[in-house]
């Protein structure tokens, strides 16, 4: 729920994001830009994990599909920017619909396995369909329009897109549909008894999550001017899962906080050691054993204790 206190916090974060270019550090702009993109990716993932209780193991697939679609439409086909950007989201949605249709038929470990299998299939296609994707060398030299190809402008563009998507997702999870989705997570059988078509509810969540992941992928393409096949590999799916758990899947913005924490730590720890994965693993173990609700859950619990 939006309390006054949260609203003020959100306003401060928003103002800080908008004011960031004033400090004039290109490094900060790039870092926060990347955080925003991955925050969107993690938020989309949390529609499935946090709200739907669906452990998808192949969420990177839709990120990659959006990324490649945007790159190919812009560069190979020379589509106008907004058309290509929109079409990339639509393509991600369609792919998520087709894949999700089969996945929601399965439950638990089998659901996770099938999402993983499809994601690996997407990876294999991207890896081998060299004529379109560039294969192992990646898709390099994406035709980002000139008006957007300025770090500060792209930064504001990202803020607008991510804020818009986050707002839509917020509205979705607080709608009747969102509550029904939570009900299917809490008790699938009871939801079915009262007449909820669980599979359909889950499929819609799958499509929504895939679409927003695709938008994040498109942004990442524009950000990097390139796409690499690693963006579909299972470790990318693992990463978004780690971000979400780290931030806390029980809250709406937790995964975004997780993305920010992970990327900031990554940037600063890799400055002085190559053994960043071990630090990440230690953080992960700490979350697993001591703070299973993530950073956000931990913070809100402490707040409650204090009140």
């Amino acid at each position, binding site marked *: 729920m939006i309390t006054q206190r949260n609203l003020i916090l959100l306003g401060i974060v928003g103002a800080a994001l908008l004011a960031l270019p004033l400090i004039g550090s290109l490094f900060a702009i790039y870092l926060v830009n990347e955080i925003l993109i991955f925050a969107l990716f993690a938020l989309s993932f949390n529609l499935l994990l946090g709200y739907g209780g669906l*452990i998808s193991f192949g969420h990177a697939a839709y990120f990659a599909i959006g990324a490649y679609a945007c790159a190919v439409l812009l560069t190979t086909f020379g589509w106008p920017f907004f058309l290509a950007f929109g079409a990339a989201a639509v393509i991600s949605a369609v792919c998520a619909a087709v894949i999700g249709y089969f996945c929601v038929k399965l439950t638990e470990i*089998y659901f996770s396995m*099938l999402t993983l299998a499809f994601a690996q299939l997407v990876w*294999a296609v991207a890896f081998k369909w060299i004529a379109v994707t560039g294969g192992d060398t990646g898709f390099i030299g994406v035709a980002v329009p000139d008006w957007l190809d300025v770090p500060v402008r792209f930064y504001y563009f990202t803020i607008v897109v991510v804020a818009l998507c986050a707002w839509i997702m917020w509205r979705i999870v607080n709608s009747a549909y969102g509550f029904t989705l939570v009900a299917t997570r809490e008790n699938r059988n009871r939801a079915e008894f009262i007449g909820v078509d669980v599979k359909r509810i889950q499929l819609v969540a799958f499509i929504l999550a895939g679409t927003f992941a695709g938008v994040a992928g498109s942004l990442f393409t524009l950000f990097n001017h390139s796409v690499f096949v690693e963006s579909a590999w*299972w*470790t990318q799916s693992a990463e978004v*899962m780690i971000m979400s*758990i780290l931030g806390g899947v029980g809250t709406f913005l937790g995964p975004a906080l997780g993305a920010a924490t992970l990327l900031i730590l990554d940037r600063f720890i890799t400055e002085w050691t190559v053994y960043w994965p071990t630090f*990440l693993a230690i953080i992960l173990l700490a979350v697993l054993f001591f703070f299973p609700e993530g950073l956000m859950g931990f913070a809100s619990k402490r707040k409650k204790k204090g009140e």
Partner: protein
Amino acid sequence: MFDNPMLTFIQLLNGLSLGMSLFVIAAGLTLILGVLRVLNFAHGAFYMLGGYVCFSLVKLLSGVPGGFWLAAIGSAIALAGMAYLIERTMLRHLYERDHLYQLLFTFALVMIIGDLVRFTWGTQVLSVSLPPGFKGAVNLGIAYYPSYRLFLCLMGVIVAVGMWYFVNRTRAGRFVRAARQDREMLESLGINVGRIYMLTFVGGSALAGFGGALAAPAVALSQGMDAEIIVQCFIIVIIGGLGSLGGAFLGALILGLLNSFGVMLVPNFEIVLIYLMMVVVLMIRPWGLLGKPEAQ
């Protein structure tokens, strides 16, 4: 494509030796998955570590007769010891938790082992030379074939028979089967299920280490070999059926043969073919070719 019998024959052997060396690793994975219900992403990292440990032991034992074989057994023991520590200190506290947390735990292991390998052995690609007696090729009538590859085929079959005997014909194996079927019932009969879990994890991990050691002379040791092997093992386990040993054997054969003949049928797209098959099997028989559907 089949008009050249020699080529077909060699591809057949390539498929078999690939499948059988994968089986040794996948067998451990499916055992752990069946009993502990843990999807162990770190199994590939255990395999990688097994290969690297073997590399160091071979160096250490240079000059000792049968050095490579001792090194391979040493790798299995080292991995068993590590698995024991991991299980006792951390993993066992997670059995009751959601399987998401178990997954994350195995991710953490993947990252730590990856760094451990980088820290200890560096980033350059390493190789282990073929053990003496297996350096040449064998004349099989219509073609020559590297003898070490043939040995890998044989080893897969030996491991398969050994595990089948253990699971189906020994007292300990009976407990493993029972734990796979109904943990609570077994516990109420006074069996220490925690111990069975521990031994299964240790045994499965030892197989991964052994598989890595055996693969070391046939592949190049490099960072990232863990991420690739784990996906292949998942394919095998999914096709065969989660927790089914026979299924893993069948899955390994299918994957190996599809790999070698896929190259001839659809050059460049054999990987796509393999993932496609995994998807199709999951859609039609999510419990795998030889698995049994779970009661809902």
